[in-house]
């Protein structure tokens, strides 16, 4: 239990630093912007209470907002992400059958499940984020291409980090 809290806390700090000081400066052709920090919300353990999940998502969003000068933008997208996460997990994962508090990571859940999970949640988050940021229909085409390309970039980074921290014999 304490170990899970410690790991998630360190992940929280590390992802904020990576997002703010590294990924903020990376943009491919002005179209593809990675928002890897949502990986924190994706990787929280299955049994987390809903209230805590929403509170953490809101906190993460508002901290990123403070660095990006956009109060409320990332926070609202993150809260939506947390809601979609609850729906997705309640549909695809049966409640019992895990022995020691599992997390929805690549090494535990397998590639196929994790890829679908990351892709769908990222697309919800990015679609909401980009449309709220631009907030007009006249640029929808441009917004749409940014949304697609950024989602691909973010999911790619998620898979890379999942493989980087791959632990083999966790689930048999």
């Amino acid at each position, binding site marked *: 239990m304490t170990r899970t809290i410690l790991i998630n806390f360190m992940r929280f700090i590390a992802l904020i630093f990576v997002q*703010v*000081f590294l990924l*903020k400066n990376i*943009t491919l052709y*002005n179209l593809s*912007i990675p928002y890897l920090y949502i990986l924190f919300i994706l990787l929280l353990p299955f049994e987390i209470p*809903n*209230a805590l999940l*929403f*509170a953490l*998502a*809101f906190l993460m*969003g*508002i901290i990123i*907002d*403070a*660095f*990006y*000068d*956009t*109060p*409320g*933008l990332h*926070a*609202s997208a*993150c*809260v*939506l992400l*947390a*809601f979609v996460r*609850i*729906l997705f997990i309640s549909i695809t994962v049966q409640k019992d059958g895990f022995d020691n508090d599992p997390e929805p990571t690549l090494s535990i859940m397998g590639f196929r499940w994790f890829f679908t999970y990351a892709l769908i949640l990222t697309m919800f988050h990015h679609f909401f984020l980009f449309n*709220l*940021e*631009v907030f007009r229909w*006249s*640029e929808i085409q*441009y917004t749409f291409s940014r949304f697609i390309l950024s989602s691909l970039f973010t999911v790619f980074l998620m898979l890379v980090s999942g493989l980087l921290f791959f632990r083999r014999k966790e689930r048999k």
Partner: protein
Amino acid sequence: MRNLLIFITKYNAFFLFIIFEVSALLIYIKYNSFQKATFINSANQVTGNLYARADELNSYLSLRDANEQLAKENAALRNQLKSSFYVDTLAKQKVTDTVYKQQYEYTLAKVINNSVNKRDNYITINRGSKEGIAKNMGVICADGVVGIVMYVSDHLAVVQSLLHKDTHISAMLADNHAIGSLIWGDDLDPHKALLVNITNNVKPRMGELVVTSGYSLFPAGVPLGKVVNLHTKSGGFFLNMEVALSVDFSKLQYVNVVNNKYAQQQADLEAQEKQE
């Protein structure tokens, strides 16, 4: 009542979602419509400090560029020195000149946070109200116009960059003095902007310099860019043209904040006219 409680606990995720989402959106909308200096921006203590640290590292890496630019500016300034002109009159007497009174004051500031890839870009600089920076002052650098001061804290300030959908700068064509306004285009290219509202009897040239007009916060004649494309996008009575910006926003290091000493007087006068 019991049933209501059961209903709420059963669908608690949905209700929690509504609560958090509404509060997040309230923050977002409130901030956007009033443009207040909330404490959730990069001029507050914690984020400002972290950005300053990261920037120290960054500035060390770009010392070479900064040096080159300074050397160039030195050369340009040296050209204006009296000693570099040949004096062809023999006798000179000193006159205390009361014709000139300083109107614009410049404060040097360092850029500690910057972005070019968003729809609305902001720049954070390391000078604030203690150093005499106030809201709505203009910001320029050696190459041209950078933006307008938006929020000020004690030692930091946030500048609304030229690359922002709400930035309009009064501009003119350098040769025939036609007045228009400069905005950032829809394609989010950090090197291009649009010059709009030039009346269509004007014949602009390709490559003509675009500078600030005297009607803006800036001194007249600060460069903005060059006309690169004359095609009229949405025509009618006005010409729209594409301008290549002279400032490279992605490499911004040092800027000058312009304090127009007569701005207050002008604003007061114009407010009187509106009251009548």
